[in-house]
């Protein structure tokens, strides 16, 4: 396993473009955190200080940081599709196989790298959140701090699932740009199918089926926290209540998709003549 990760990391790290993208995808989420901790002074009329809004309080901070950090997954997604696309266009995939890498090992080396990257991203965001929370949070009892730490697990699963989807699309269409295009088409297709279902069948069933779709299921892992922030400000407003928690079945659905994507990537590659 170590050998396969080393192999892939060498390919990625020595490539300037992917190195830059990897660094960006690690750093950008933090700049947002830093920005949000700045006091914004509106011409002396009033000061908007995000830290004072209570968004850096435990346990809600886990939810907020993982949600916003997850929006930057797109940078590494580019790396994932291009690491497949380049292997095809440079024919290095063929050369790797001739040199004695099996097709299974090839997919696994990509998948392990995805897991490795997601793990690094999760650990980093976890540490940063913990540090920022300790600094700003009004509550620092251990039971409160770690109450919603499962958002980290959700974040990790979400990244692995999303990148596995990119891996699959990369293997499917062999070109990085087209793979990203497909990702966008999938996004639109999910909404359209959801719309049609809601129109033809009743809303509840449509929602349930929609939750099983790959992109929607990844989205469900970490619901948007904005509503929750507003909720904390107006606790009386019961219309706002929604289910933002991480559920085991949501994780299970995404893990299911991950397995399907990785398996089909391997299956496609095995079927193909290079």
């Amino acid at each position: 396993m170590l050998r396969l990760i080393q192999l892939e990391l060498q390919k990625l790290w020595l490539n300037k473009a992917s190195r830059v993208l990897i660094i960006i995808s690690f750093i950008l989420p933090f700049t947002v955190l830093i920005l949000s901790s700045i006091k914004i002074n509106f011409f002396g009329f009033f000061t908007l200080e995000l830290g004072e809004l209570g968004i850096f309080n435990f346990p809600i901070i886990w939810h907020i940081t993982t949600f916003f950090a997850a929006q930057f997954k797109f940078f590494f997604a580019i790396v994932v599709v291009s690491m497949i696309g380049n292997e095809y266009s440079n024919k290095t995939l063929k050369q790797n196989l001739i040199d004695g890498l099996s097709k299974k090992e090839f997919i696994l080396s990509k998948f392990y790298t995805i897991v490795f990257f997601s793990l690094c991203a999760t650990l980093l965001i976890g540490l940063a959140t913990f540090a920022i929370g300790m600094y700003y949070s009004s509550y620092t009892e251990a039971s409160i701090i770690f109450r919603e730490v499962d958002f980290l697990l959700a974040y990790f699963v979400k990244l692995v699932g999303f990148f596995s989807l990119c891996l699959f699309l990369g293997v499917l269409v062999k070109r990085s740009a087209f793979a990203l295009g497909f990702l966008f088409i999938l996004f639109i297709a999910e909404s359209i199918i959801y719309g049609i279902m809601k129109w033809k069948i009743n809303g509840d069933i449509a929602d349930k089926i929609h939750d099983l779709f790959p992109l929607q299921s990844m989205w469900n892992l970490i619901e948007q926290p904005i509503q929750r922030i507003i909720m904390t400000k107006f606790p009386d407003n019961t219309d706002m209540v929604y289910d933002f928690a991480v559920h085991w079945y949501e994780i299970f659905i995404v893990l299911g998709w991950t397995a399907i994507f990785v398996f089909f990537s391997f299956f496609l590659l095995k079927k193909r003549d290079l």
Partner: protein
Amino acid sequence: MEPILTISNLTKKFGYLTAVKNLTFTINKGNVYGILGPNGSGKSTTLGIVLNVVNKTQGDFHWFDGNITTHDALKKVGAIIERPNFYSYMTAEQNLKLVCRIKGVDHSKIEEKLDIVGLLDRKTHKFRTFSLGMKQRLAIASALLNDPEILILDEPTNGLDPQGIHQIRQIIKDIAANGTTILLASHLLDEVEKVCTHVVVLRKGEKLYSGRVDEMINSHGFFELKAKKHDELLGALELHDNFGKIKVEGELITAFLNEPMSASDFNQLMFDRGILLSHLVKRKESLEEQFLQLTDNK
């Protein structure tokens, strides 16, 4: 003899097209094999199948004694297919390190192999700065990293300039001299003739011949003849039982022998009939001519 690669009844179909048809042959240790065939005769497909990048439709192949998976066997094989494929943004050394990781070989071989192909002084240069000849030599170095039991080369001199071709051939000869088994696919016949001891001839995916190069055709050779009495000579040749095909190109008559016959006997015969030859050469077919004959006849 110790078999290295055994192929039996191998078939590959791409849709309606049959690229390899019921192919059977064995590669034994220590020989230099050539796979000959025109473009599109299934050479690369066959190599692709045994190298695990193309899926077979039917039949079987196994490496070595058959007790080893293809995946493990490939770690004891060195191969170059068509163009040299490396990561353009890595240096020669980094590319070879990657191959070492794949093959599970120690990095220490890198310098030695780069030296064999004469690229040691370019090892820190990026692959994309290399000329085609250098790329191809790097590919050979990469294929040699694991000290392979068999080296497979698919059109190794394709697209190279004469100097590059010469360099690659010299490297191949040196490697063969060390006792490494070599399998060379090519449509360049003089290349195979110069390097190989054994040959497999393919045409449209079918095997036409496999065996030693010098036994490829049991022919008795042919005469190249010229005479003042051109038409009479032609008439005499056509009536004689020993001759099969006769070709005329201007003055020059080429007559192929069905039965063995020496040049002096023939000369005597013609002299007796009052035909004086101004040109008489007896030759055996070159590999090229044998190859054309073989591929034309069927």
